[in-house]
């Protein structure tokens, strides 16, 4: 009988075979950088409706459109940034020192905020950033009380999109002496952070903890308490957001399942959490349901890549977006998905001094700033076409779904119709089939 040549392998793709071989060989699961490559419904599944006869477009070249963004409006000292694009928390450890400083410098060039990520804040990052967000993580590595009072925004971290329910994971190869010093842990160990905060084990504790933090911040900032955000991975969005609002947060950072990370088990990256598109819709629905939309800000992240994603996220009801992987790509990252190895040839996801030296800080900072500027301008272009003089004025009525799937997930009518095949979202609420 003739041998079958190049058979169609169906389930048993080369990737699946490689994964099984890895497990058979090593008796453990694979760790990978950069999050999940899975294709999930995303902002590309929506289209923006331009103004025609029903409304006038705004002149792309001659008329202005404001991009200024206020985050945590209910806080004593809300955070004001010039573009609704923030740089997400990526740790010094996962990223090189040069990369962290470049990102911080980029925020000063465009007027936005950077989050420090896990394991302390490099003094150079704090010095160079336009506005600084400080994360309060369960591991509390490198954390110090004084950091709280220097922050323009605080994030209490409950989960990240790439590996929700799991904690930070930094391979030993990246724990250099400097990292170990700033994180206050021994050098060279494989670092497994904590998934739960030891100082609040539940929603009830959190209410008290936030009251306490606010009181202390009020005293130490002279009445300029920064907004306190909850960073949560997209899962049971409705319930989680209700709890976060009840606990007293000024805002939510919602991280979808395609978010990046320096190292995550493949299974966690690929199978935990839900995409940011339906999660963002559910978050806005929930905030509206409980009457908190105007006082609680929403930042979405997890695979946001261009101005269209930004415009659509704002139209859905987010106040800003956070970029991580995209900012790395702007610096030169090629998404090889091997951040966990710590051998990044571009000096971004490595601690090897020779490799780190390859990343020119100022050049990288300019590239990231250029990227954020261009991406903001892309969003402005789309907003003006839709007739908006403020980026924040984009609304869900400006959107249409391109696929049945995105229509059902978001409640935004299918393109060319007023019909929603699922739970309607806002203006289309009465037209569900």
């Amino acid at each position, binding site marked *: 009988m003739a041998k079958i040549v190049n058979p169609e392998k169906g389930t048993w793709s080369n990737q699946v075979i490689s994964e099984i071989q890895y497990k058979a060989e090593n008796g453990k699961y694979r760790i990978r950088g950069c999050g999940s490559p899975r294709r999930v419904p995303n902002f590309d599944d929506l289209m923006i409706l331009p103004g025609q006869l029903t409304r006038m477009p705004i002149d792309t070249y001659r008329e202005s459109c404001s991009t200024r963004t206020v985050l945590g409006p209910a806080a004593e000292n809300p955070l004001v940034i010039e573009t609704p694009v923030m740089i997400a928390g990526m740790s010094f450890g996962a990223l090189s020192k040069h990369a962290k400083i470049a990102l911080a410098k980029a925020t000063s060039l465009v007027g936005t905020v950077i989050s420090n990520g896990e394991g302390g804040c490099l003094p150079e990052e704090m010095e160079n950033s336009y506005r600084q967000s400080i994360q309060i993580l369960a*591991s*509390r590595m490198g954390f110090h*009380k004084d950091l709280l009072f220097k922050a323009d925004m605080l994030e209490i971290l409950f989960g990240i999109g790439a590996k929700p329910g799991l904690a930070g994971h930094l391979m*030993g190869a990246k724990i250099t002496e400097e990292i170990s010093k700033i994180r206050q*842990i021994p050098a060279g160990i494989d670092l497994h952070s904590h998934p739960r905060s030891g*100082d609040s084990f539940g929603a009830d504790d959190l209410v008290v903890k936030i009251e306490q933090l606010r009181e202390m911040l009020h005293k130490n900032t002279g009445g300029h308490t920064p907004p306190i955000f909850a960073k949560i991975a997209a899962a049971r969005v409705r319930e989680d957001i209700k709890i976060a609002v009840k606990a007293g947060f000024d805002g939510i950072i919602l991280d979808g399942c395609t978010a990046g990370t320096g190292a995550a088990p493949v299974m966690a990256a690929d199978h935990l959490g839900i995409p940011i598109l339906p999660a963002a819709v559910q978050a806005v629905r929930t905030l509206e349901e409980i009457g908190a939309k105007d006082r609680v800000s929403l930042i979405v992240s997890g695979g946001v890549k261009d101005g269209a994603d930004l415009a659509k996220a704002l139209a859905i009801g987010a106040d800003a977006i956070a970029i991580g992987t995209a900012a790395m790509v702007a610096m030169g990252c090629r998404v090889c998905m091997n951040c966990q190895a710590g051998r990044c040839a571009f000096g971004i996801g490595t601690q090897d001094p020779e490799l780190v030296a390859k990343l020119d800080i100022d050049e990288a900072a300019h590239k990231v700033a250029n990227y954020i500027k261009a991406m903001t301008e892309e969003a402005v272009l789309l907003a003006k076409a839709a007739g908006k003089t403020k980026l924040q004025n984009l609304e869900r009525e400006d959107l249409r779904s391109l696929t049945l799937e995105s229509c059902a997930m978001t409640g935004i009518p299918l393109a060319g119709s007023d019909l929603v095949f699922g739970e309607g979202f806002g203006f289309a609420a009465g037209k569900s089939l």
Partner: protein
Amino acid sequence: MEHIDASAVANKDFNPMVWKAIEDGAKEILISNVHSMHYVLAGTDQPVKVTIEDSTGMYTCSYLENAEVRVKGNVGWYAGDNMVSGKLIVEQNTGCNVGTYIAGGDLVVYGSTGTRVGYGMKGGHIIIGGSAERWAGQMAMGGELIVLGSLGLGAGESMYEGKIFTRDPGAAGKLGGNVAYSEITEEEAAELDALFAEYGFDAEGKQFHVIRPVLDAAGKHKYTLFRPILEPEKAAKKRGE
């Protein structure tokens, strides 16, 4: 000595009131009728001596710095969490997660404590006169936890750095993963003796053993994951070799 009667004070007004007294020059303060309020004296950072006559609620002395606080009653969950320096002395018992993320200072409890005392602690001393429940010192990154009474199961689970001192005769059988039970050194015993003398505990350093983190030869932690057959001896036995 300044005296504050907190019986008619709302929780949210309590700390600002004490801070005002400190600002006005109070160096020693006696507070009565705290009625188990939450985050009592949390965030206090001035060198002041405070005595609280009754019991307090959650987050007592969170983020405490420089101050010396004595609570004559019990304290609730998370007392002394994120403490930076100074002293928190509790004359009776505490809830769980006491001394979580403590970075410095002394947290002394004359009674017993709940689970996860010293969770993720990074520095300072925690002394428990009575017993400590499960997972004492879990994920500690530094500092010293001293328990005079019995230890619960899982002591020192996944510690990165730091030490737990115990004189529980059964302690060796109650260790969490990634830690080992070892003899105390003379320096360590002398350090304990000094602490016991300072806080008036009837104990001697040489009675204690030390629970410390262990790393394998490659410097990696021995995390206990799902390992059904990967122990070579057992696997060989199963195969009948």
